[in-house]
Structures are given as C-alpha cells and as structure tokens.
C-alpha cells in the first residue's frame, strides 16, 4: 500500500504537485478520519432528512391549518436562509442556551448539531418535492380508489404514497446529491470532516491545489454513488408505460 502511495507521490511531483502528506502517517490518518466522518455525516443526514421530509410533507398536506401553517412557515424560512446561518443559529445560539440551562449535561456535540441542522434543512426541500408528488396524483385515480370502498388509511398507503414517491423520486435524488455537498459546511464549526482535515494540512504545507483535487474527487465519488443508487431505485420503481 505504502509502495503505491510513494509511487503516486513521486509521479505527481513530476507535475509540481506536493502530495507528501499521503506518506506521512499522521497527516494521512487525519485525512482518513475526516473521510470517514464525512461518510458517516452523509449517511446520517440522508436518513434524517428523508424522515424529516416525510413528516413535514404529511403536515403540509394534512389539510389541518394548525399543522400545515407552522410547517409552511418552517419550510419557507429554511429554504430562504443560508445553511451556514442556520448552523450558527443552532450551534452558537441554541447550544449556548442549552449549555446555560443544563450545564455540562448537554449531550449534543457539534457533530450532532450538524446532523440535526442539515437534516431539517434538506427535509424542507424533500417536503416540497413530496408535496408536489402528492398533488400530482390525479384526483380521478383517488376517486376511483374511493369508489372501490378503500378507507382513508388504505387510500394513503396503497395509492397516494406509492404514486407520490414515484413522481417525486428524481427531485428527491437531486436533493440528496446536494446534501452530500452541503456536509462540507460542517467544517465551519470545527467538526472534523474531510474539508476540515484538508484545511489543517494546507495551512501547514500550503498545498491547496493538491488537496482540492483530492477533496473534489472524494465528493465527486460520493455524489456519483448517490446518483447510481438513485437511478437503480428509479429503475426498480418504474411504472412501465409512463415517462421513459
């Protein structure tokens, strides 16, 4: 393994690129730790955002104003303010208030705050996509199911949700790819993800370009994976005769 790394460092030095940090055990370790943190962050936020999205979409389409109103306010505020500001509000404000209230018993680490904020942020986007999907189910199909004596719960689970999910799937996958890129913002509150690890290295060795290429490659690979999983899901859930 080290042999390959050394060969790569030597080869890239020919182009004037300094990849020495790959052979230094400590720096390589920080990068690996950062990559794992980013992976974990992505997995947790994908699950969290989908759950938040389904919950918010249910509130938005429930038809009850005391549920739909706050949900709509939350979705609009989240979609129209930067993620970084929301992260600061959560971490610098809410966390500070929480620590003042419970002292050292505050269980939420910066990592936890990043997961919560990004899940809720992307959950708002998912909710909009799911709401559009739910509204795209033709009324007549719902009436047809009604006339077959389905009750409300059966209507939701057997007809509305399967069709809404299929209509909303491309938008949901796009949101998840955006989410993978958004996890880079975790470095702003010193969560040790790959961006943060790279910053630590380049402030010492000043090899920004090399690290950039590495990080862009890493995020590109992650986006590509999510894209592939998304396309597999689309193929599995495809309704023959609709779309392409």
């Amino acid at each position, binding site marked *: 393994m080290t042999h390959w790394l050394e060969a790569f460092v030597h080869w890239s030095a020919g182009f004037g690129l300094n990849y020495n940090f790959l052979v230094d055990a400590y720096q390589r370790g920080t990068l690996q730790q950062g990559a794992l943190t980013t992976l974990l962050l992505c997995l947790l936020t994908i699950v969290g955002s989908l759950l938040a999205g389904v919950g918010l979409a249910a509130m938005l389409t429930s038809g009850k104003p005391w549920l739909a109103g706050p949900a709509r306010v939350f979705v609009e505020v989240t979609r129209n303010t930067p993620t970084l500001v929301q992260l600061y509000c959560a971490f610098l404000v809410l966390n500070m208030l929480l620590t003042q209230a419970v002292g050292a018993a505050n269980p939420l680490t910066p990592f936890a705050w990043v997961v919560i904020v990004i899940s809720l942020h992307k959950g708002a986007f998912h909710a909009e996509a799911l709401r559009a999907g739910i509204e795209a189910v033709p009324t*007549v199909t719902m*009436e*047809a199911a*009604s006339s*077959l*004596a389905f009750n409300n719960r059966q209507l939701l689970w057997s007809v509305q949700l399967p*069709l809404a999910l299929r209509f909303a799937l491309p938008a949901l996958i796009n949101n998840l790819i955006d989410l993978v890129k958004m996890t880079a913002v975790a470095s702003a509150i010193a969560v040790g993800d790959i961006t943060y690890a790279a910053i630590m290295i380049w402030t010492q060795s000043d090899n920004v370009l090399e690290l950039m290429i590495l990080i862009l490659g890493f995020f590109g690979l992650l986006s590509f994976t999510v894209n592939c999983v998304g396309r597999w899901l689309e193929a599995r*859930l495809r*309704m023959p*005769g609709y779309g392409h």
Partner: protein
Amino acid sequence: MPSIETVAEPLVSLRDLHLSFGGNPVLKGIDLDVRRGEAVSIIGPSGSGKSTILRCITGLLQPQKGSIRVGATEVHTLAHEAQRIELRKRVGFVFQQYNLFPHLSVLENLVIAPRKVLGRHRADAEKDARALLAKVRMEHKADAYPGQLSGGQQQRVAIARALAMRPELILFDEVTSALDPETVGEVLAVIRELTEEGMTCVLVTHEMRFAEEISDVVYFTENGVIVEHGSAARIFQRPTSERTREFLRHALGDPGRRPTIAADPYLLTNLSRYSLSV
C-alpha cells in the same frame, strides 16, 4: 335486456335532488328510478349534471336537498365516511380516465380491492380476477401495466375491476368519451354483454345508437333537470319535448352546414387562380 316488468321497488331512487357547487347550482331537482336488472342511460349536453348524478349515487358528492336510496340505504343520511364505504362495496363505478393504478399490474389492480377491502384470500381473488379478465378478453395482459395498454384495454380492465367487488349495480361515467373510435367498440361490447346478463347498469354516455340499443330506460337531462324520460324506443323515435328533438338531431348527425362565401380565396377549388406549387 330483461323485458319482464316487475312492480317491485326500484333498486335506486333519487327524489328531488338539488346540488350546488359554491353558488353555482348544478342539479335542480332530479327524480330518477333504476329497477333491478335494468340498463338506464342518461344523455344530455355537457354541463347538464349527468356525472354529478352518478357521483351522488355512490356518495362521492353530497346533495344539499333531496333523497337518494340505494337498496335499503338512505345515502343522503350517511354522515360518516365509514358508512359510505359500506355503500361503495355494493356499487361499482367506472370513470372516464385514469381509472387504473399505474404502479400495479393488471392482475394486481383487480386483486387489491377484494383483498384489502373485502378481506378475501389472495389465491381466491386471483382465480376470480383471471376469470373476469377472460370475460373482458384481457386474460393475455394479466401481467402488463396500465401504461402499456391502450385506452380501450384500460377501460375493459377497469370494468373487470369494478366487477371483482361483486356489486349489485355498476355506474359508467362517459367511459368511451376519451377513446378513439376503433377502441370504443370493444368497450361497448363488454357493456352490452353485462346488460344481457342482467347486471343493473346506469350509463352516462354520448354514444346515442348504443344507448338506444341496450337501454331499457333513457333520461334526457339539460341544465340540471330531467327534461324527458321513458323507454329507449320512445325517446329516440318519438320524443315529445322540442329540446330533446333538437339535442338528438345534433347528436345523431347533421351538425348544420355553414353557407359558402363566393370567391373565397381559401376554398380549395379556388386555389388554381393563385399560383401555388405543392
């Protein structure tokens, strides 16, 4: 087409039905009777409230005034959706478009309601479903998806799906209006067979000749009221109301020709006077 007149109580009775959407009155006093085993057609111009009548019978719309009786059930008194669901187990409905569930295959479409609503076992439901598909001549498409079928094929599957619930009565809401002329015939053939077997049917249709052929009773509606009703032969051959006559004249052909303009440059026979190469 059963011709035995019974003096038994009609299966469906509508009395003085009034319904408005917002401030807009759609039904302004409808009286309608459907006897068991009869085929009833409702004809009339667009916007006359025909589809609304069907939706009231099955409880999808609630009237402001009037009574609806299906068998022993007073539909207008049903307050909870659960009670209307009981009614819908006995009344089948076939819509104009987007009837079938596009994410399920044809067989699954037929099987889902008997299983989830009536609680039947999958094996029984599938056996029945295949028999019904054979009846509408769609058994070779049991594993196809609705998006892969033509409009006429989809409507035949929709009729089979309504039959899978073993209803007492089937309502057809302009089921051939969205189909191209070749496929209209195959759907009408299925409906004709149903009426010949004695199924009680109420059809809203624009297919006048078909309505004349299979119906026992025809109702002509316009502007939310029933203008005239009677046996098919009488309505189509000897209508008493002038509006019925006018409607039938337009519906059965002769839409009225426009007078020609002399020396109209766009009239095709006049084109040779202008140099055009095709």
